């Protein structure tokens, strides 16, 4: 079985700018694959290369085993959910959803039936007669989803589809998208700059930076074992320790990462733990946890997160200026490769 989408040494340049730089990835059939990265990192360009809105400057893109470079979007078995939804304002919801079937010459009765089915799938039955302008943002987003899915694509591309929704709705849609993907069993390729979104929904995540891929891994591995300094800092919060301090704490000059929640501030170090002293610099109460910043004796700042699950923590609150000993187990440190600037 060939991968759903396969990039081999793909580059896309715009003048001097290398938007996508020698990328190779295999996206397996039926997986929920996210492309995560800051804006301008090349993730959206990759999506547009798969959809066919862009053509690669070099390299090969295969969709289900057949070469796609050079094929126009309308000859590809992929569909896109656009960031701005891109619903046709002059058509009602049903005609929007049935559009892909109409241009392929499907008879009216069948395309209306399939449009109704797709609308039911996204819980919008009975909205067929409305115009897009009469819908809320969340409803438009569902219509965009139904419009893409009605064509039964083997690969669905989603370009930051939840970006315009408010937090509650976004969390709800994340769950629904994941459920839909499992139910349909098709490949979802999801572009986002929101790392929590990528971590919570995906089977695998590719982290993009400056047109290159830093790491492709499962959300768990990405978080627990970041490969590079960029991934450690972009996915979640991390303390990246470099240079002399790294040498002193880990015994090697290579940079390493330690997550704030893996650091303890109370008690004595157990055997095999690393300990470093400092002064509490800043305290932020965040409900389930408290974020603390420790200025180490060497001058660096260390972010620490302490779960607020003990009454003691409340009885004896932290105070800025207080001297603390930070300690963590050796195995919590992950050695990183320095990302080339």
């Amino acid at each position, binding site marked *: 079985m060939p991968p759903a989408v396969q990039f081999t040494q793909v580059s896309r340049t715009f003048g001097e700018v290398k938007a996508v730089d020698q990328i190779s990835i295999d996206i397996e059939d039926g997986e929920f694959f996210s492309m995560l990265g800051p804006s301008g990192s090349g993730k959206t360009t990759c999506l547009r290369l798969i*959809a*066919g*809105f862009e053509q690669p400057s070099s390299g090969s893109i295969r969709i289900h085993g057949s070469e796609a470079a050079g094929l*126009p*979007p*309308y000859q590809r078995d*992929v*569909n*896109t959910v*656009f*960031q*701005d939804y*891109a*619903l*046709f*304002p*002059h058509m009602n919801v049903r005609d929007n959803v049935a*559009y*892909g079937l*109409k*241009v*392929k010459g499907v008879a009216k009765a069948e395309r209306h039936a399939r449009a109704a089915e797709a609308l039911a799938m996204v819980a919008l039955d009975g909205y067929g007669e409305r115009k897009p302008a009469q819908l809320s943002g969340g409803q438009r987003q569902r219509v965009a989803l139904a*419009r*893409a899915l009605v*064509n039964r694509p083997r690969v669905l591309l989603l370009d930051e589809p939840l970006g315009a929704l408010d937090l509650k709705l976004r969390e709800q849609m994340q769950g629904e998208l994941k459920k839909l993907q499992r139910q349909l069993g098709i490949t979802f390729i999801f572009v986002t700059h929101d790392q929590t979104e990528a971590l919570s929904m995906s089977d695998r995540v590719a982290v993009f930076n400056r047109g290159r891929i830093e790491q492709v891994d499962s959300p768990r591995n990405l978080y627990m074992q970041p490969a590079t300094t960029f991934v450690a800092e972009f996915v979640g919060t991390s303390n990246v320790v470099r240079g002399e301090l790294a040498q002193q704490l880990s015994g090697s000059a290579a940079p390493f990462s330690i997550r704030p929640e893996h650091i303890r501030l109370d008690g004595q170090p157990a055997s095999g733990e690393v300990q470093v002293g400092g002064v509490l610099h800043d305290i932020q109460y965040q409900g389930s946890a408290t974020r603390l910043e420790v200025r180490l004796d060497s001058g660096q700042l260390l972010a620490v997160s302490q779960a607020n699950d003990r009454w003691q923590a409340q009885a004896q609150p932290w105070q800025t200026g207080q001297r603390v000993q930070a300690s963590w187990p050796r195995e919590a440190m992950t050695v990183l490769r320095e990302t080339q600037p």
Partner: protein
Amino acid sequence: MSLAVKRAAGSSALRRISDLLYRRPNLYLLMLLIPPLLWLGAIYLGSLLNLLWQGFYTFDDFTMAVTPELTLGNFAALFNPANFDIILRTLCMALAVSLASAVLAFPIAYYMARYTSGRTKAFFYIAVMMPMWASYIVKTYAWTLLLAKGGVAQWFIQQLHLEALLQVVLQIPGVGGSTLSTSHLGRFLVFVYIWLPFMILPIQAALERLPPSLLQASADLGATPGQTLLQVILPLSIPGIAAGSIFTFSLTLGDFIVPQLVGPPGYFIGSMVYAQQGAIGNMPMAAAFTLVPIMLIAVYLSIVKRLGAFDAL
């Protein structure tokens, strides 16, 4: 300190007027609108209604005198075969000019909206609008020379060895004439030339508002470029085409210079009004003719509206 400053300013007359206007926004609006309303209402609409009212006056053919005896005779006379012919001729020309302008303008507008930016776009704006800076009468006279026997147009047709075709076209009744400059075709060409910018700019504005993602979505869903044009681009540019056609249609209906200078003899509505109130002095008949384009445009607008052209606005 700041309180004292506030109180001092509050006592000034100007501040009190500002406060009053702030508290009564309707008064503010009224003061803003009185000058334009006076102009539009009293001077523009008033004189137009006054003119139309004169259409009910009686004109004596023998004494050439206008008497304020009310009659419907002038409006009835519009349906005389001779007058009705003028109306029909003008209407057909206005429709043909609008249609041809839309067909010619669409590709230019599409190119301007989708493929140009910065300097190229500025160049296109200037190129489209520059002809409008030149005098309209000069341009029309220039066209009489271009289309005349031995003129540039005929020379060009000779170079292409198409004189025979031109002769055939000129013999078609309702289109032709003895030469290009005295034919309906020639008049049509001049009208299209003169009103084309009024069609390009609104279509270009409509296409400019079209988000590129809509075209990508259409292609993504499997539509070929032709299907995207018919299903997405054209329907969404109809408000622009409608706006442009309102210009070309009404400007052609009211024009009285081009019909006099180019094309076969015979009146247009505009030149008829000109002749009636000028040479003949039959103000009531001129007024009756003035009503015709107003009615035609009203009908045209209601048809355009019924076609849904304004739904997407």
